[in-house]
């Protein structure tokens, strides 16, 4: 059935994958190499060939970048990833290579002990950011080298789409200003201004197909992370003419801006999607292009969401019960004690479960995709709920600094466990009720496959990018 949609002559792995991937890897390698040069990181690469010369390190780095880029190209061709979905694959791929390359292969091949310790990870934090740039640049270069890449970029940069992004940014930026103020001294810094650029740039990473608010939130949060890296960790230093400083203390200090960037990205993506839906309904004459929802409908979806949320909430409750946060949760409604905390927590868990069901119905192809969406949504709620809403509702400032984020780490674990339970349970329940991929005819099979292709086109990249961001939180904020 898969071939019904992904048909056509099979692309050449070398000509369409490895070769452009290698060329894109050069572009990514140059950017990463420049960063390494600024960070004095090239001698460490040269150590692989028992040298400490920067140019040797640069050459070796470029060779590795070409090899890793070629692998990326092969992966893209094999997976048949569309150009519009490549950026997040590139970011996830680059970040993964930090774990595999920098933390594992580099010490092994250079004869150093492989520690995988937090200390090592924090010492290699500049490399992590470099890998992110490498992945992003490689992906973008790969898109531009592809035959359909230019068309995809042009298609995403239509004036109406840019205007939509701008409107979304204006709305989200305005909301942020209303909530937190604006200016260098304010909690958000210049984020509301940056949000305008985020809005204009969002159409570039948007797949172009209506994807629903849930997936948009996840995509937007990842998009916000990219902007945080660029605006908070890179541009100011480049503008000031200083060398790059991606050391752990600098990054930890910049985490005061990380949650709002994630939220701004998520907000822009969600509003962008809503505006798109509104525009489609108002201005599109061809009704065939209108989006028809699949997945469980009616009251059942609410019940399934509440049930799944309850399940995830029970798992999460044990984590919060252990770290004694439940009494704080009880204070949300003016109550006291762990029992009241449990009740409030489970009610919130069910409400979020219902929201998950409404936002992500018909988005899980199997339990693994349910896990992916659930984990990502759990992470989003850690940022939005535990770091922002909970303290604000309790009359405290948002937990937007390294110390507070480190303190809230058990909450992150709890939210991830909650999301995993929620996503898996909902996927299971939904599949019992309405297996949307079960096709009765070839026509319907093609439609179901197209939908699955859309879901799985960039979603796995978003899941693993989100998971990796979550995993690196200790690296970002823990005291060395």
């Amino acid at each position: 059935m898969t071939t019904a949609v992904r048909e056509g002559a099979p692309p050449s792995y070398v000509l369409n994958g490895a070769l452009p991937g290698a060329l894109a890897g050069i572009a990514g390698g140059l950017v990463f190499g420049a960063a390494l040069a600024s960070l004095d990181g090239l001698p460490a690469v040269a150590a692989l060939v028992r040298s400490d010369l920067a140019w040797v390190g640069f050459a070796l780095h470029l060779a590795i970048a070409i090899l890793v880029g070629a692998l990326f190209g092969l992966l893209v061709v094999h997976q048949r990833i569309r150009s519009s979905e490549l950026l997040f694959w590139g970011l996830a791929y680059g970040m993964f290579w930090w774990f595999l390359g920098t933390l594992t292969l580099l010490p092994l091949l250079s004869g150093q002990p492989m520690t995988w310790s937090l200390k090592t990870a924090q010492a290699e934090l500049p490399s992590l950011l470099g890998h992110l740039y490498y992945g992003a640049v490689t992906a973008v270069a790969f898109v531009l080298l592809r035959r359909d890449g230019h068309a995809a970029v042009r298609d995403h940069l239509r004036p109406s789409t840019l205007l939509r992004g701008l409107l979304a940014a204006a709305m989200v930026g305005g909301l942020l200003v209303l909530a937190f103020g604006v200016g260098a001294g304010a909690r958000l810094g210049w984020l509301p201004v940056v949000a305008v650029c985020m809005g204009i740039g969002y159409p570039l990473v948007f797949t172009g197909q209506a994807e629903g608010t849930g997936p948009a939130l996840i995509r937007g949060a990842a998009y916000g992370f990219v902007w945080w890296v660029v605006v908070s960790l890179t541009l100011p230093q480049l503008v000031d003419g200083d060398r790059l400083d991606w050391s752990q203390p600098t990054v930890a200090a910049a985490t005061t801006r990380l949650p709002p960037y994630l939220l701004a990205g998520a907000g822009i993506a969600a509003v962008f999607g809503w505006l798109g839906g509104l525009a489609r309904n108002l201005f599109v004459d061809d009704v065939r292009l209108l989006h028809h929802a699949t997945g469980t409908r009616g009251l059942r979806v609410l019940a399934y969401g509440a049930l799944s949320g309850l399940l995830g909430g029970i798992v999460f409750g044990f984590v919060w019960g252990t770290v004694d946060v439940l009494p704080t949760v009880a204070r949300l409604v003016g109550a006291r004690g762990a029992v009241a905390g449990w009740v409030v927590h489970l009610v919130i868990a069910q409400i979020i479960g219902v929201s998950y069901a409404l936002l992500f119905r018909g988005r899980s192809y199997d339990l693994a995709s349910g896990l992916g969406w659930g984990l990502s949504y759990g992470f989003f709620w850690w940022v939005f709920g535990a770091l922002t809403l909970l303290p604000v509702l309790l009359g405290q400032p948002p937990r937007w600094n390294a110390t507070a984020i480190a303190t809230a780490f058990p909450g992150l674990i709890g939210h991830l466990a909650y999301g995993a339970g929620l996503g898996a349970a909902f996927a299971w329940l939904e599949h019992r009720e309405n297996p949307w991929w079960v096709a009765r005819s070839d026509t319907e099979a093609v439609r179901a496959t197209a939908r699955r292709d859309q879901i799985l086109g960039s979603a796995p990249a978003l899941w693993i990018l989100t998971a990796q961001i979550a995993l690196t939180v200790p690296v970002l904020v823990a005291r060395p």
Partner: protein
Amino acid sequence: MRLQEYGPTASGGRAALLFGVGSGLASGLAFGALMSWQGLLESHGTRSWAAFALYGAITGSLLGAVVGRRPYGPAVSAAGGLLLGLLGWVVWWLTVDPLLHGDAPSWSIAAATAAQPQLVGSLLQGTLAGTLFHLLTVRLGVREPADAKRRTPSARVVIVGGGFGGVSAARRFERLNVRGHRFAVTLISDSNFLLFTPMLAEVASGGLEAQHISAPVRAAVPHTRFRHGRVTAIDVAGRTVRLGDEVVPYDHLVLAVGSVPHFLDLPGMAEHAFTLKSLADAARLRDRVLSLLERADQETDAAERARLLTFVVAGGGFAGTEAVAELYDLTHDVLHFYPGIDPDEPRFILIHSGKGILPELSQSLGGYALRKLEARGIAFRLGVRASAATEREVRLNDGTSIPTATFVWTAGNRPSPLLKDLPGERGRGGSVVVDATLRAFELDGVWAIGDCAQIPDADGNPYPPTAQHAMREGKAVADNIAAVVRKRRPKPFRFTTIGIFVALGHRTAAGEIRGRPFSGLTAWLMWRGIYLAKLPGIERRVRVLLDWGLDLVFPRDIVVTTAPADAPVPAQETR
């Protein structure tokens, strides 16, 4: 129907599980050995590599269980592995491992810092396991033959009838297919919607829009092959049904064709009586009443006015009682539009052969309903039957006649004429006699449910033909067919009526739940609440709720949507 994809609940089988365990074990061994070599698992003893391999095998088995039967691609499988690696780290290294060492898990950043090596190890191991799993599934998994086998249905089931019973059976088959069965189910119905019959009388009275109490069959059973058409013949020996010119084969046939009005061959009934079994019936009846009000408003002859304004319903069961009550409400709610009609002029008469109405309810509730309706001015002719009908009157078996222009027949139903030529044992009114497992006697592979079947309860008495029974019978028949296909014994159908309510119009109802009686406004609110909840789909519920809400604010509509039955009457001077 050719099912072409399978979800995780129809498990990928042992092969996927084995591949998952194998991938997890291999990757666990590789990274366990690497970590042991680098001294990252020293705190876990000398055989820590084996422990890590075991951990890998466990997460690998989960991988085999959660990734669908058809892995999408290596990157997606690797992503699944990475996610499971993350979860494995949280569950095992942050939670179980401290517990095994006698410490309470803290999930703090300090604990995460201490378990950082295991985090990186789990992440990389999970990713490798996902990639290996994909390779194993693609290389060693016998995909195509397995899929080809799966596409072959285990049984072809044809359901005839898209009412409560048929749709319920189809839904159950869909659920069974998700659980690993391979039924090819075709539902054939001459209407493409499921009609919520308990609210039909309200449509006739203009209280509800016709479409709001019906739901498309295709939406109710999206994974069932639906054929809109009428089955004209059943060949039990050849195991086929005829649909137009087409012959549709089956292995199991579920008859859920419902019932049609039965006029007992009484003269003039079929030609002149209105029925209330379908949306078209309800719309026709409403239009008839409104048309007659229009005519009566202009009619100067007293006898003719009386005839036009006399509404007779035959049958004192649920349908007849609700019909006469709703017609009464409709007429009196719209009379203010007709200044030429005195409110005392319209007459409503219910004819019933028994001594009391509503035999389905207890005697006291039947008496309550009778008193309530009589108090409004509805007349009852009990102990008599309608014997004939003409265009101008209905005759009774006691020799009297009632001049009327509207005669509604609800006094008799019989199974669909499709069953007329069906061999096998026949029950009351020609219904198909089935055993307790819903299987028709003497008819191999034929099952019957709903109004067209005579289903014995535990005492041997037939179950009543209600929607709540039909829905349960639909589920039971699907389960029993599944049991027979798997060479197991089908289970007898057992169900006790939960409750039953009849609407008596104007905020009044009567009914009972598990034998406990309710009446008046309480029963009416329960009637509305229960039937609203039973409507198929939230969309219908909201629409009906809006209809009811608007009904409180605005008057009933008097637009006549169909062509008048008689030629328009010239306008005359109003009296």
